[in-house]
């Protein structure tokens, strides 16, 4: 437990004065998702520990350098969880989880990282210490800058603290497996999501559709009877492998992430390998198709595409429309007028 906020603020204040770029780092578990990594390293790791946690308030306030694992272990002792299941990959701090805004298998049913952020304390590009949002469930005073920080890859500010809404762990979880072709699996998952169901995750890979049910003992038992399928062993580890990308699908080479409407028909028909989760909304593809084709297909489905782990990172970010790009630049200037934070990390013009 350390509070290094003052040192971090001083470093940023000097960097602003000297127009010195800073590369903000937590544990580095998500650095493969940075377009570039330039500037003097600024580590949040020392700034760690739980600031406040009261289970019946459903709010956890932590310093950015706290690891996801530590936060989760504190929550677990009280029967609670980070419901958005932030990927740890190999390590992972809360600061990084919020800055990258990534969410795991439970996302479509409970919400994403941004949905659980209630407030933040940040340092902006002028070295100012700002508290935005709060520690309560509902708060509409001022613009929602805490959520804007989520998924902004640190280019708008150094996250010092985050207040996160937490949820009770479900009483019980069960995973059922079904043998289904990709087309049928997409349809099945979509149909199931259209009626009341205690579903909390789905994943299709190699003709197997896994469906996780969460809730009360009786509720889950009944739902799994109606649903059918077979039970699987060691389901917790399976879902962890999806969340943290330790599943074999993610182990080699580069792949695409497509974020699309859940019922979008099967997108690629070549020999590409696919893993589909989020009830059909998130599709991971290994394919030889051209980046232009993939991007186009994702766009016409109403979503977007990005390529992870490619050596050149050329398609790591989906390009923004011109007017959206303009507003991004203006927002960047509103927070970080000297462009000191993570230059080129998110988009090369930010």
């Amino acid at each position, binding site marked *: 437990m350390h509070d290094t906020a003052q040192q971090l603020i001083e470093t940023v204040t000097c960097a602003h004065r000297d127009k010195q770029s800073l590369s903000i780092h937590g544990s580095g578990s998500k650095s493969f998702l940075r377009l570039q990594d330039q500037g003097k390293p600024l580590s949040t790791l020392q700034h760690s520990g739980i600031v406040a946690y009261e289970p019946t*308030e459903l709010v956890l306030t932590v310093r950015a350098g706290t690891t996801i694992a530590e936060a989760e272990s504190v929550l677990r002792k009280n029967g609670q969880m980070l419901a958005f299941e932030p990927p740890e990959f190999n390590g992972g701090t809360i600061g990084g989880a919020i800055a990258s805004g990534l969410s795991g298998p439970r996302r479509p049913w409970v919400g994403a990282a941004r949905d659980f952020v209630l407030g933040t304390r940040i340092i902006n590009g002028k070295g100012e210490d700002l508290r935005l949002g709060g520690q*309560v469930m509902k708060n*509409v005073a*001022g613009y929602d800058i805490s959520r804007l920080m989520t998924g902004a890859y640190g280019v708008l500010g150094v996250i010092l603290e985050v207040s996160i809404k937490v949820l*009770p762990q479900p009483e019980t979880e069960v995973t059922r497996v079904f043998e289904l072709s990709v087309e049928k699996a997409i349809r099945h998952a979509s149909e199931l999501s259209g009626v009341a169901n205690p579903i909390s995750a789905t994943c299709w890979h190699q003709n197997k559709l896994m469906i996780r049910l969460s809730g009360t003992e009786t509720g889950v038992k009944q739902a799994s009877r109606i649903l059918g399928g077979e039970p699987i062993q060691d389901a917790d580890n399976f879902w962890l492998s999806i969340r943290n990308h330790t599943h074999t699908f993610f182990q080699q080479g580069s792949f695409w992430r497509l974020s699309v409407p859940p019922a979008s028909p099967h997108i690629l028909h070549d020999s590409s390998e696919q893993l589909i989760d989020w009830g059909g909304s998130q599709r991971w593809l290994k394919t030889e198709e051209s980046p232009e084709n993939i991007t186009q297909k994702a766009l016409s489905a109403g979503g977007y595409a990005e390529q992870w782990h490619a050596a050149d990172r050329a398609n790591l970010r989906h390009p923004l429309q011109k007017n959206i790009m303009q507003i991004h630049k203006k927002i960047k200037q509103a927070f970080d007028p000297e462009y000191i934070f993570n230059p080129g990390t998110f988009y090369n013009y930010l």
Partner: protein
Amino acid sequence: MPSEHLKSLLSRLSRHLDKSQLLTSDEALAPYECDGLSAYRQRPLLVALPDTIEQIQATLRTCYDMDIPVVTRGAGTGLSGGALPCKDGVVLSLAKFNKILDIDTQNRTARVQPGVRNLAITEAATPYGLYYAPDPSSQIACSIGGNVAENAGGIHCLKYGLTVHNILSIELLTIDGEPLSVGTQALDHPGFDLLALLTGSEGMLGVIIEITVKLLPKPEIARVLMASFDGVERAGDAVAAIIGSGIIPGGLEMMDNPAIRAAEDFVHAGYPVDASAILLCELDGTASEVEGQIKTVRHVLAENGATEVRIAGDEQERMAFWAGRKAAFPAVGRLAPDYYCMDGTIPRKHLGRVLKHIDKLSREYGLPVANVFHAGDGNLHPLILYDANQQGQLRLAEKLGAQILELCVAVGGTITGEHGVGMEKIDQMCVQFQATELAQFHAVKDAFDPKRLLNPGKAVPELHRCAELGAMHVHHGQLPHPEIERF
């Protein structure tokens, strides 16, 4: 504004809009003078009622060129003076944009125009077994555009989230009439989370012209329990205990005795009029899920001193239980000529303390207060009763309201949970935020609207305003309520 100016504005606008779409007579302007916060009134220069996107663009471009302020208006049910006109400005009413453009049953989304009423979305989705979750008590009247602008919540947002959690994309026009498409039809979008930034931005950053909302499957079953308590604190403890037991109810609402009596008189919901407080707890999901939860909640309520627990026997009784809660504002409105609705949110653990303090303030000011709140998420709606026709009572009600909000901030909460800052809470923003934080908000505003023409003077106070107020608020270096520990 000199009439020459108005003339030239009119002549430019009438190139794009019909005469009937441009209101200028006193009579025609009167209904636009205020929103749901009727104590604040201002007649605008002109009201524009466009019915095409091109007409909205033309109106914005003209105002942008001529440096004329623009206040966007949905249904005008806002409770913070957000849609209050500017004297020298245009009110841009989106009332004519009331079409549901598409319902995608497969992906469970609805694409709607901003003037569509909140409840109309659920009505249109009902045949498909779907609904739109955020359900503000004003849902029969308020517009979805206004909901996005205020990040509206409702009884069911404890479990299903606020507006920000239930929309996928919006089409926006910036003050210069340029379109911005924010979000996708998928669950997230590349770049900054502009969707979150724009939600709850109170019409300060742009004009929302289309929204894609998420629809959820109707729960198989919903049951509601009503528990009575002989102390408000006890009811507050029961709320914490329910959540501590691992259950997130679909809705968890509390009313105090004055609110219970008023509601009972008004809609005959079957409320226990002698109780100090009641809790309404709705559990929804699959039948077997709900059955188990009812058992748990009953037990928790009994353990926490509920004097009576009733379960609505059928759908009709369930609706009756809720009807009392949903009609609480108008019901309380019958107790006095006027009421003033506050909207602070606090960490739930301070509920008892804050309510006691409100009671003390109410007696000091000689104005009764009835309390209705979204207990599950600590969002209070103290309703201050007053009579605007009695000299000085409005000012007194405002002062009492301001003190209540400052109390909310002092215990670690916020001045507004869902109604927005608007014009009403502009001074309390100075209590909740430091100058650097307010300056950051202004910088965000300038990124979208550098001329500050959209809703000027609202949502974020000018720094000099706070400096002047500061002199009033800080007595001998002490903030309001020094007796309360700060967080």
